[in-house]
C-alpha cells in the first residue's frame, strides 16, 4: 500500500470515529454499540480489513441487527432516534472493515455524515460540536487526499507533503466560512427530535422524587456539577453561604421511605408576578442550570413567595406557570432546559407557620411513627434527652448526640429491613438522610412534631452570586416549635453537609460550566431573535433622552464604534488576504534548481555560503570541474526558466535531471576506477 493511501485511510477512519463519538457523547447509545464500534475502529486503524472477503455475510448480520432494533423500537423499549444512530454506527463499522475502495470510502464518509446528524439529534452539546469539527476536518482531508491519489499514476508516490499545506489551508478556510455562515444566517434550533438528553456531563442527579427511600446499595457519587445560581438581595457578601435551600418536606415515614400524608396540598396552578418592595425578606434571583434535571423550585429557608418563573426551552424563553404539590414542593408546569425565577424568603429565624395554621391531619402526621419501629429508638431518645421537654432544645441535644456518636459515610447501607435501626444500632454510620431521619423519628417518639426537609446545603460565591452543586444535595430536620413555627435542625456532622469534591475538580467544573453556558448562549440558542438583538443593541441608544433637548436624529456613538470596529476588521481581513495572495510561492524553476542542487550534493559538490546555482556553475567552470560541462546547460535552462521568461516544458525538468544524474554517475564511476577522491569543490 502506498504511503499516502495509508495516511488517507487512517484519517478517514479517525474521522468516522469522531463522527461516532459525536453521537456517543450524548450517553444514550446502547453499550453494545459502543463496544462493537470501538473494536471495529481499532481493527481498522491497525490496517486490518477482516470483512473484505465476507461482505455478504456481514451485510446479512447487519440486516439482522436492523430487524432486532426495529422490533425494539416497535415494542417501545428503544427510542427511534437512538436506534437509528446505533444502526448508523454499525453500518460505518462494517464499511470500515471492508475493502478500502472508492465506493467504500464514499460510504464511510456518508455514514459519518449520518452519524453527526444523529449526534445533533441526540445532544448537540459542546463536546458534540468539537467532534463535529474534528470529523469535518479529518474527512475533508481524507477526501482531498483521495482525489490527489487518483490523479497520481499507479506506482508513483503520492505527494502528501506537498498537498498537505494547501489542503490544511483550504480546510481552515472552510471552517472559518462555516462559522461565519453559522453566525450570519438564521437557523432552526437543534436538538428538537431527540429524546431530550440531560445535557452536559452525564446525567443530572438532583432529582426530587415524591419519596425519599433509605437503603439501596453502592456509593453516593459526589457530583460537582453546578445546579443552581442565585443572586441574593441583600447580598450577604460571604465566601460560603452555608445556607439551606429547601426543595420540599416529608412528613410520613413507613420504615423505609418518606412520603407525604396528602399527595397535593392544594394543586392550584399560578403565575405569580413578584414586585420588589418587601424589604424585610431576602430576595433571590435563582437560575436552575441544565444539570439540575428537575422541575422543583428551591429557595432559601424559609420560602415565603415564589414567582416570575421563566422556562428556557429549545424555542426560547417564556413565562411559565408553577404549581404546588405535596410537602410544600413547587414545580414548574412546563419542562425546559433551564429555569429562572425569583423568591422571597423569611430571614433566618422562624417560619410564619404555627401549629394552629396546619390542618389537623397534617399535625397528626408530624407525630406519626412507622409501624414496628424499633423500641430502642424511643428508649435511646429518652435517655439522651434526659427529661428535656422544649422541642428546640431537645432537637439540638439529639443532633449534637448524633453528630458525636455517629460517623458520616457515602457508602449506602444496602437493603436492610429496618434502615433506621440499622443506622442507629448496627452500622453507626450513614449519610445525611440517615441522620435527618433518625433525628426526626427520635423527636417524634418523644411527642415533638418534626418533619424531614430535602434540598441543598451550601452556596459558594462566584462573581457576585452564589452557586450550588449537585453534590450539595442534603436532607435535614424541621422541628415545629409552638409560637415560632418550623425551625431547622441538622443532625449531619457539619463537615459533611456540603459537596465533598476536590477543589481542583470544582474549579475545572466551574470552567466547563462557563464554556458550556457560552456554547449554549452563543451557539445552540443563538437564533434569529438574537441576531436582531445584536443589531438593535448596536444601533439603539440606551440613554434616556433629556426632556428639554430636541430629539436627536444622529445615531448613537456606539453605532460609530461598531462601524469603526467593522471597518478595522474588514481592513485587517483585507490586509491578511493580500498578504496571503502576494506571498512568495516557490516557483517551478526554483524547485528545479533545488533538485539540481540535491543531485550535486549527492556528488559531493556543495554550495559555499549561499551561493546560487548560477554562481556555483560559474565556479565549477573556472575550476574546470569534470561535471561542469553537464551542469552548464542545466543551469542555463534554469536561468532561462527563472529569469528569462521561458518556463520549463512538460517533462523537461525530469529529462534534464536524468541527464545530469547520468553524468554524476559516470563521474563517480570514473573517480572510483581511478581510486581517487573526487575534487572537492571549494570556494575560489
Amino acid at each position: 500500500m502506498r504511503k499516502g493511501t495509508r495516511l488517507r485511510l487512517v484519517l478517514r477512519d479517525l474521522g468516522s470515529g469522531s463522527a461516532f463519538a459525536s453521537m456517543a457523547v450524548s450517553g444514550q447509545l446502547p453499550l453494545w454499540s459502543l463496544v462493537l464500534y470501538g473494536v471495529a475502529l481499532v481493527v481498522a486503524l491497525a490496517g486490518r480489513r477482516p470483512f473484505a472477503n465476507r461482505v455478504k455475510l456481514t451485510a446479512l448480520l447487519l440486516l439482522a441487527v436492523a430487524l432486532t432494533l426495529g422490533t425494539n423500537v416497535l415494542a417501545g423499549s428503544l427510542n427511534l432516534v437512538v436506534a437509528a444512530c446505533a444502526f448508523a454506527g454499525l453500518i460505518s463499522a462494517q464499511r470500515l472493515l471492508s475493502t478500502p475502495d472508492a465506493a467504500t470510502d464514499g460510504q464511510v464518509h456518508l455514514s459519518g455524515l449520518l452519524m453527526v446528524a444523529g449526534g445533533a439529534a441526540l445532544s448537540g452539546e459542546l463536546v458534540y460540536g468539537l467532534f463535529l469539527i474534528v470529523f469535518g476536518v479529518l474527512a475533508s482531508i481524507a477526501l482531498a487526499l483521495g482525489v490527489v491519489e487518483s490523479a497520481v499514476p499507479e506506482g508513483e508516490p503520492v505527494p502528501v507533503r506537498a498537498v498537505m499545506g494547501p489542503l490544511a489551508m483550504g480546510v481552515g478556510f472552510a471552517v472559518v466560512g462555516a462559522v461565519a455562515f453559522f453566525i450570519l444566517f438564521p437557523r432552526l434550533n437543534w436538538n428538537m427530535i431527540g429524546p431530550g438528553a440531560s445535557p452536559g456531563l452525564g446525567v443530572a442527579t438532583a432529582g426530587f422524587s415524591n419519596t425519599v427511600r433509605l437503603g439501596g446499595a453502592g456509593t453516593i457519587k459526589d457530583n460537582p456539577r453546578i445546579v443552581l445560581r442565585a443572586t441574593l438581595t441583600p447580598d450577604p457578601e460571604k465566601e460560603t453561604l452555608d445556607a439551606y435551600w429547601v426543595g420540599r418536606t416529608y412528613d410520613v415515614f413507613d420504615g423505609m421511605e418518606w412520603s407525604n400524608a396528602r399527595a397535593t396540598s392544594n394543586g392550584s396552578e399560578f403565575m405569580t408576578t413578584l414586585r420588589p418592595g418587601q424589604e424585610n425578606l431576602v430576595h433571590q434571583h435563582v437560575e436552575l442550570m441544565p444539570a439540575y434535571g428537575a422541575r422543583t423550585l428551591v429557595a432559601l429557608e424559609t420560602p415565603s413567595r415564589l414567582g416570575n418563573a421563566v422556562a428556557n426551552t429549545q424555542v426560547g424563553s417564556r413565562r411559565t406557570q408553577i404549581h404546588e404539590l405535596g410537602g410544600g414542593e413547587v414545580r414548574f408546569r412546563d419542562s425546559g432546559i433551564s429555569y429562572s425565577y425569583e423568591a422571597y424568603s423569611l430571614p433566618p429565624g422562624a417560619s410564619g407557620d404555627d401549629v394552629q395554621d396546619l390542618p389537623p391531619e397534617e399535625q397528626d402526621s408530624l407525630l406519626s411513627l412507622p409501624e414496628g419501629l424499633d423500641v430502642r429508638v424511643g428508649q435511646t431518645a429518652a435517655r439522651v434527652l434526659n427529661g428535656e421537654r422544649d422541642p428546640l432544645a431537645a432537637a439540638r441535644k439529639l443532633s449534637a448526640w448524633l453528630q458525636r456518636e455517629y460517623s458520616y459515610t457515602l457508602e449506602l447501607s444496602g437493603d436492610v429491613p429496618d434502615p433506621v435501626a440499622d443506622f442507629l444500632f448496627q452500622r453507626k454510620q450513614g449519610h445525611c438522610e440517615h441522620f435527618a431521619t433518625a433525628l426526626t423519628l427520635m423527636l417524634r417518639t418523644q411527642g415533638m412534631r418534626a418533619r424531614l426537609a430535602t434540598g441543598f446545603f451550601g452556596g459558594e460565591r462566584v462573581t457576585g452570586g452564589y452557586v450550588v452543586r449537585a453534590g450539595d444535595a442534603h436532607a435535614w430536620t424541621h422541628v415545629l416549635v409552638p409560637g415560632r413555627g418550623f425551625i431547622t435542625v441538622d443532625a449531619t456532622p457539619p463537615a459533611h453537609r456540603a459537596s465533598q469534591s476536590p477543589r481542583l475538580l470544582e474549579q475545572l467544573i466551574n470552567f466547563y460550566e462557563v464554556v458550556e453556558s457560552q456554547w449554549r448562549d452563543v451557539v445552540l440558542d443563538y437564533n434569529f431573535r438574537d441576531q436582531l438583538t445584536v443589531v438593535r443593541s448596536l444601533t439603539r441608544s440606551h440613554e434616556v433622552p433629556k426632556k428639554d433637548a430636541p430629539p436627536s436624529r444622529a445615531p448613537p456613538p456606539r453605532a460609530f464604534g461598531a462601524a469603526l470596529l467593522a471597518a478595522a476588521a474588514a481592513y485587517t481581513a483585507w490586509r491578511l488576504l493580500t498578504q496571503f495572495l502576494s506571498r512568495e510561492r516557490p516557483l517551478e524553476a526554483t524547485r528545479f534548481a533545488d533538485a539540481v542542487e540535491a543531485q550535486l550534493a549527492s556528488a559531493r559538490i556543495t554550495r559555499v555560503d549561499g551561493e546560487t546555482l548560477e554562481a556555483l556553475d560559474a565556479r565549477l567552470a573556472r575550476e574546470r570541474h569534470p561535471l561542469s560541462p553537464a551542469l552548464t546547460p542545466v543551469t542555463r535552462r534554469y536561468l532561462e526558466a527563472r529569469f528569462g521568461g521561458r518556463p520549463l516544458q512538460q517533462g523537461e525538468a525530469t529529462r534534464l535531471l536524468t541527464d545530469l544524474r547520468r553524468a554524476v554517475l559516470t563521474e563517480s564511476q570514473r573517480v572510483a576506477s581511478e581510486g581517487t577522491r573526487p575534487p572537492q569543490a571549494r570556494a575560489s
Partner: protein
Amino acid sequence: MNQPARALSPVPSPANARTAMERIATQLDRAVQGKPSQLQLVVTSLVAGGHVLLEDVPGVGKTTLAEALAKACGLSFARVQFTADLMPADVLGAQVFHAQTATFQFRPGPLFRQLVLADELNRAPPRTQSALLEAMAQGQVSLDGATHALPAPFTVVATQNPVDFSGTYPLPDSQLDRFMVRMSLGHPTPEVEAGLLVTRDGTPPLDAVETVSEPEELASLRSFAAALRLDASVADYVVRLATATRSHGDLERGASTRAVLALGAAARAHALWDARDFATPGDVRAVLLPCWAHRIMLRSAVQGVSARDEAAHLLEEIARKVPAPR
C-alpha cells in the same frame, strides 16, 4: 575606417551581440595585454551606454586602452589633457567672431567626438570638470543660449591618478555618480610584462588594433542591451541591494537611484557576454563592485584607493547578506 565593418545581422541576437563584443575585446587585448576582465568591463560599460573612470597610477595603459577602444569601434576620438588652467571653453568649444559675415559662429571643442579621453580629470578646476560632467549627463552642450548635440554614441573615458593628489581638485561624489563604472588596470603580470619586452619592437601598441566595429553597430548594441529582459525578481534584488547600502551602519550614503539604474543597465549588458537575452542575479553580482564602489560614501575618513577598497569590501559583505532570488 580602413576595413569594412563586419555588419551585424539585421535582427540582432544575443549570440551576434556576444560575437561583436568579443571582437572588440580581442582588439583591445592586443593593445592592453593580460587584462581580460578589465577589458570585458570596459566593453560592458560601452555597450551599456555608460562612462568609464579609470583610476590608476601612470604608465599602466589607461590612455592606450581608451585610444584602442576608439580605434576598435571606429569612433571619432579626442584626448583632452586636463590641467589646472583648462577652461570650459577649451573643452566645449566657443563662439568665434566671423569677420566676413560679421557673426559669431560656434566652433566645437574637442568634446564633440564619439569617444573622449579626459586625461587626469582631477587636475582641472571644478568649473571645467562640471562643464564636462554636465555634457556627459545630458549628451549635449548648451552655450550662449544655443544647444549643440554631441555625437552619438558619446562616451567619456576619464582617468585620474589616485595616489598623487597634490594640486588636484578631487571629484565630488555627485560627479563620481555619473560614471557607470570605475576601475583600475593595475600592473600586468610578470609574464605579460616580460612578453612585452620581448615582442614590442618599437611599434606603438595601437598599430596592432584593427577597427572591427562601427558607431552604428555600437548604437544597435546599446539599444539591444537596453531592451534585455530584467525579471521583476532581479530588479527587486537590485533594489534590495540598494536598500541594504542605504541602511548600512558604516555607510554615510548608500546607492542613489542613478546607481540603481546604472547597475541594471550594466547587468543587462553583462548578460550579453553569455549570449543571454535576460539578466540574472549573477550579472548583477558581476558588475556590482565596479558599478557601486565609487558611489557609496563611507563614514570613516579614508580617502582615495583605500576608500574604494573599503567600499568594495562593504559591498561584498552586503551582497553576501542580501539573498539573491532563486
